[in-house]
C-alpha cells in the first residue's frame, strides 16, 4: 500500500518534480508522525529501551527505500525508519519492536533499530557500525552465483560509522568483488555528540569514493527531488552493472542521538545552515507551492496516517509481551548442537 498511495487531487495542475515525489512524501510524513509518536511514548515511559529517530533524514532515507525494489537487499541503520517503510516494512514491525511485543520480527530478543527481516532482503543490523556492509556484499555475491539478475544491494551509514575498520573493509571488498552495491552515507554533522572535525580528516566524505573505485555523488539531503534523483540514479547505475556507487548526503540531525539526548552540543548557528532544513517541511512547502496537493489534502493525509500509526501502536500495545518461560533459549539453529551446560 505504501508503495502505491498517491492522493488524488482535482487541483493537481502540475506534474511532481519526480515521479515518486508524492509517494515519497507520504512515507516521510508517515515517518514523522510515527516517530513523533514514538518520542511521546518514550517520554511517557512506554518504550522498552531507547528510541532513535531519523528526523532530518527522511528525504534521504525515503529515497533509499524507494529506489530499491523486491529482490534487492537493504541494510538500514539507525535513522532509517523512512527507508525501511519505503522498502516495504509494515508499521507494525517497528511498533511491536519498540513496544516490546513478542510478535515483532525480533520477538523481544532484540529491539528498536536492530529489527529486520533478512528473508525479505531487509537485514537486521548489529550495533557495531560498518559491520553490515560486507554482509550486503555477501548477499550480492550469492545472488550472482545463483544467476539472479538486475538486483542491487544498499547499505546506509553515518559519517561516524565511515571511520570504522569494518566500513573500510566492507566498502573495499564490494569493489573487489564488483557487486552492484550502493553506499549511502549521510553526514548529519554529528556522530552522537562528536562533530565532523573529530571524526575525519578529509575535506568532504565524498573524497572517499575515488579511494575505493566507486562512482561518487553528493546530494542535498533536505531536497527530496535531489535525493530521489541522485540515489535513484546511483541505484540504477549499480543495477546496470556499473561500479559500486557512493552517495554522500548532507543534512543536520534534527533530533538527539536518541530521545534521551537533548542535542545541546549542536551550535545554534548550525540550525540556520541550509543543510539544517527540515526535509519534510521543505517537501510540504514545495507541494503546496506547486499545487501538487492542497493544504486540505495534506491535512487529510496526515489524519489518515495518524490513524494508521495509532492502529499500529494500539495493536503493539495489546500484543502479549515475551515471557521467559516461553522462550526456548536457544542460540543454535540445530537443536542437537545445543551445548548441554549444567
Amino acid at each position: 500500500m505504501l508503495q502505491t498511495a498517491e492522493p488524488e487531487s482535482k487541483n493537481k495542475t502540475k506534474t511532481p518534480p519526480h515521479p515518486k515525489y508524492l509517494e515519497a512524501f507520504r512515507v516521510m510524513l508517515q515517518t514523522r508522525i510515527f516517530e513523533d509518536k514514538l518520542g511521546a511514548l518514550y517520554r511517557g515511559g512506554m518504550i522498552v529501551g531507547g528510541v532513535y529517530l531519523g528526523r532530518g533524514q527522511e528525504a534521504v532515507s525515503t529515497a533509499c527505500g524507494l529506489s530499491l525494489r523486491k529482490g534487492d537487499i537493504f541494510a538500514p541503520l539507525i535513522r532509517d525508519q523512512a527507508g525501511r517503510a519505503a522498502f516495504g516494512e509494515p508499521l507494525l514491525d517497528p511498533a511491536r519492536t519498540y513496544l516490546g511485543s513478542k510478535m515483532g520480527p525480533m520477538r523481544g530478543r532484540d529491539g528498536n533499530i536492530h529489527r529486520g527481516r533478512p528473508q525479505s532482503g531487509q537485514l537486521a543490523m548489529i550495533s557495531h557500525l560498518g559491520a553490515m556492509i560486507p554482509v550486503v556484499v555477501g548477499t550480492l555475491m550469492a545472488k550472482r552465483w545463483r544467476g539472479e539478475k538486475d538486483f542491487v544491494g544498499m547499505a546506509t551509514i553515518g559519517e561516524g560509522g565511515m571511520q570504522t575498520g569494518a566500513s573500510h573493509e566492507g566498502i573495499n571488498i564490494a569493489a573487489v568483488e564488483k557487486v552492484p552495491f550502493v553506499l549511502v552515507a549521510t553526514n548529519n554533522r554529528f556522530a552522537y555528540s562528536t562533530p565532523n572535525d573529530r571524526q575525519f580528516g578529509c575535506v568532504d566524505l565524498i573524497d572517499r569514493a575515488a579511494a575505493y573505485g566507486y562512482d561518487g555523488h553528493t546530494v542535498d539531503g533536505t531536497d527530496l527531488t535531489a535525493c530521489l534523483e541522485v540515489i535513484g540514479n546511483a541505484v540504477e547505475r549499480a543495477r546496470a552493472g556499473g561500479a559500486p556507487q557512493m552517495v554522500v548526503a548532507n543534512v543536520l540531525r534534527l533530533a538527539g542521538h536518541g530521545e534521551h539526548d537533548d542535542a545541546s552540543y549542536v551550535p545554534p548557528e548550525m540550525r540556520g545552515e541550509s543543510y539544517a532544513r527540515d526535509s519534510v517541511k521543505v517537501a510540504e512547502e514545495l507541494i503546496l507551492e506547486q499545487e501538487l496537493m492542497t493544504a486540505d489534502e495534506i491535512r487529510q493525509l496526515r489524519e489518515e496516517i495518524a490513524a494508521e500509526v495509532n492502529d499500529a501502536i494500539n495493536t503493539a500495545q495489546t500484543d502479549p509481551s515475551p515471557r521467559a518461560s516461553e522462550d526456548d533459549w536457544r542460540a543454535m539453529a540445530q537443536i542437537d548442537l545445543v551445548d548441554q551446560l549444567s
Partner: protein
Amino acid sequence: MSITYLEAIREAQARLLREDDRVYIYGQDIAGKFGGAFKATKGLPEQFPGRVLNSPISEDAMVGTAIGAAIEGMRPIVEMQFADFSSIALNQILNNAGTMFYRTQIPCPITVRLPSGGTKGSGPFHSQSMEGLYAHYPGLVVVTPATVEDAYSMLIEAVAIDDPVIYCEHKYLYYHLKAEALPQENLPIGKARVVRPGRDLSIVTYSAMVHEALAVANEFSADGFEIEVVDLRSVKPLDTATVLASVARTGRLLCVGEAFPWGGVTAEVIARVTAEGFHLLDAAPQRVNAKDTPIPYHPNLWSEHRPNKASIAAKARQILSE
C-alpha cells in the same frame, strides 16, 4: 555527601588528571559539555582542557594510539562507549598491549574502561560482560569493581599500574550504588574481599552479582544458613588464596558470574579451587552464569537470562542440601 559508583569513576579520573600530567582520557563523545554516553567524564573536559579528547568511531585505533602514547610515557585511559564495542579493539588489546612487555620489555600502562553488563532494554550489543575474553589472554590485568569504593580506588590504581588494565565497570551499578565517601585506602588489585562472612557456603562472585549474592545470603540467613560472599574484585590476577580460605571455612562453593556460561571466570575459579582445595569441598562446586544465548532486549527475557536472586538461591539450596 553521597557518591554513586559512576561519580566515583568520574572523581577518580578527576584526581588522576589533577595529580598526574601523564594521564589523558580518550573516547567517543567524552569531551565538550557532553561528557560521555554515561557522563563519566562530565565536567572534566572544561577542568582539564586538551586532556579529555573525543575520538572518531575507531575502537581499534583508539587503543592503538593509547599504546603508542604509553610507549612514550603517558598513562592513557580509553573509554569504550560500551564494553561490547571493545570487540573492535580486541586485537590491539590482546595482541599489541598484551604482548608488549613480554616481547620488548617496554611496559604498556594503558587503562581501558569497559562499561559492562546488562541493564534493562539494552539488548545483545549493549550488555556484554567481556572479562572472560580478556582474562584468557596473557599480559592483561582485568578488574571488576563491585562497590563505589572499589570503583574509585581500583581506577586510581589501574592507571598507576605498569601493565595494561581492563577496567570493567558495571553499568547497572552506575546509579544503583551509593557510598558516603571516597575511600582513603583500599585493598590492592589482586586481592579478593570477603564481603560477608559465613560458615555454610561460599558464594564467589564479582561486579554486579556481588549484590545479588548478598541479597540471597541475607534471605538464607533467616533460614539459619550463613553464606559467605567473596568479591573477587580482580579476575586476573585471581586471588585463589582468599577463595580457598573461604572454602576451607564453608566446605561449599558456588560461583556466580553475569557472563556467558561456557568458560570464563566461574569455570576458572572452580578449576583452581578443585585443583588446590579439592579436599576442602564437602559438596560439588556449582556455577550460575547467564544463559547461553545472546543477551535479550526485552526486560522479561533479560531478567531471566542473567543470574538473579531466584536462580542463585536455587543453586545455593541445592548445594546446601547435599
